[in-house]
């Protein structure tokens, strides 16, 4: 290592390095013409200041500043939970959380992306589990360490009452747990902030699965559809689609039925 380091130092060409940085930092957001932007804000990405147009989201602002997202980004619509962000605003002590694709930049934001939350995610066979509060504790014993500090709720970009659903879990109220956690997008911000090291969203997922398996009424339409699939109702249509070429598929996609926006 030492020798290669040495040679690298010798060959250090400042201009080359600067060019490489400039190339890597090129804005990747297209369609933003600096001359047409009226309002600019200063944001700090991992400590470094950038001037960005004020009407961008954190995600597009970071791309404008030159960051390219290969991981830690997904639907860009606020549904997938991949682009979790933590930030503080200048002069404030509160640590805030949000989805980068859904939060507009503000002047003086200090940002960092949380592209992944390390979390225990045991595997289980739902059919083998007891529909009992102890099942939650068996797979997620840290649930017992909740101190009701409500930090999870404060961090939730979906505005869920996270602490309430964790507490519903502790009480064994699966209905409440399922209901309250239903809109969770599993971004991981609650878990990253929890002083008791609970992985709230995985607990909730187990809770919802147990509730769905053992307590919620069987949805008739699903049963019927499964029967139809078994009976081969869709086989012909599927065969037709899989036999199409790229162009035909693209045309079909463009002309698909869509919900009105």
């Amino acid at each position, binding site marked *: 290592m030492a020798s290669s380091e040495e040679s690298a130092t010798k060959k250090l060409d400042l201009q080359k390095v600067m060019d490489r940085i400039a190339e890597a930092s090129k804005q990747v957001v297209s369609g933003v013409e600096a001359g047409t932007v009226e309002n600019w804000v200063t944001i700090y990405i991992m400590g470094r200041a950038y001037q960005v147009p004020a009407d961008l989201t954190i995600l597009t602002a970071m791309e404008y500043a030159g960051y390219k997202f290969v991981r830690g980004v997904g639907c860009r619509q606020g549904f997938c939970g991949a682009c979790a962000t933590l930030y503080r605003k200048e002069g404030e002590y509160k640590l805030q959380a949000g989805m980068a694709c859904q939060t507009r930049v503000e002047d003086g934001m200090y940002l960092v992306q949380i592209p992944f939350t390390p979390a225990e995610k045991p595997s289980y066979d739902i059919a083998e589990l007891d529909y009992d*509060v102890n099942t939650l504790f068996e797979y997620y014993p840290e649930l017992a360490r909740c101190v009701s500090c409500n930090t999870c709720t404060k961090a939730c970009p979906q505005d869920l009452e996270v602490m309430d659903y964790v507490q519903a879990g502790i009480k064994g109220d699966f209905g409440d747990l399922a209901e309250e956690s239903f809109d969770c997008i599993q971004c991981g911000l609650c878990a990253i902030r929890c002083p008791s090291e609970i992985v709230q969203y995985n607990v909730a997922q187990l809770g919802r699965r147990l509730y769905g398996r053992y307590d919620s009424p069987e949805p008739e339409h699903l049963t019927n559809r499964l029967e139809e699939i078994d009976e081969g109702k869709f086989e012909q249509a599927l065969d037709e689609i899989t036999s199409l070429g790229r162009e035909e598929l693209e045309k079909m996609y463009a002309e698909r039925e869509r919900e009105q926006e």
Partner: protein
Amino acid sequence: MKVPYYPGCTLKTKAANFETSALAVAERLGIELVELPRWNCCGTVYSLADDDLIHHVAAVRNLIRVQEMNAQGLVDDEYRLVTLCSMCFNTLKQANVRMSENPEDLEKINDLMYLEDDYEGRVEVKHLLELVDELGFDKVEEQVKNPLEGLRIAPYYGCMLLRPTEVGIDDPEDPQIQTRMLEALGAEKIENPYRKVCCGSYQTVQDKKVVSNLAYDILTHARNAGADAISLSCPLCAFNLDSRQREIKEDHPSFREIPVFYFTQLMAMAFGLSEDYCGFDLNYIDPEPLLSAKGIIGGSNGE
């Protein structure tokens, strides 16, 4: 009389029989226990480290809910918060005492919970036994339709109803409140010094043997003093004294199993309420053979 009621997590699951029996007997006594909206687990044990405030947040948050109940008109100027579980009682009350004695601690906790209203310190944490005592055991006696005659019950207090002294509901060395209850219900009370000896509490998780040894001592003393059954008010004591009889039996095959009641189950029996309220299926040692033998159930007095 509508009073805010804090159930605690175990009363919704393994000790659901404690809750159903308590709600039913309280109603007979004219007490409507109104469940606290959005209550959270109290933490079960009061944190004892001097600098540790975060573990009191859970308790104080519940006390704030009592203020909300009053503001929402769910109760009428009623700041007593009733618990059934002795551990919840102890944890909530000790936290309440600490908050009233240390305004600066309360300020920090209020500040941490900035999304909630501030806790104003008005709540009084009460155990159901205390509330009934205040009402008068003569009122209990009036409701007795099916006196527990011939049933010899050893009251067991454990720790959390009695200690520490600042929060205890009775004399820590000579508690009598359950005795008065048992007298009102027409049962024969069997006093013995083990009524205030700890069952081992949470040690049951890390070393069940330690707990089953203690439970063996407590139950054997009660039995030797002539008791047919035990009466208590804590789901953890109940687990250690009732469910751990399985371990006791393994170690001491000649041990005679002894039923363990929540005091509210005894009240429900004496009040002539349906057995459905007692939920004996959740008791590890089935008390029904004893109750039948004493003529307390199986007669025509049940509703």
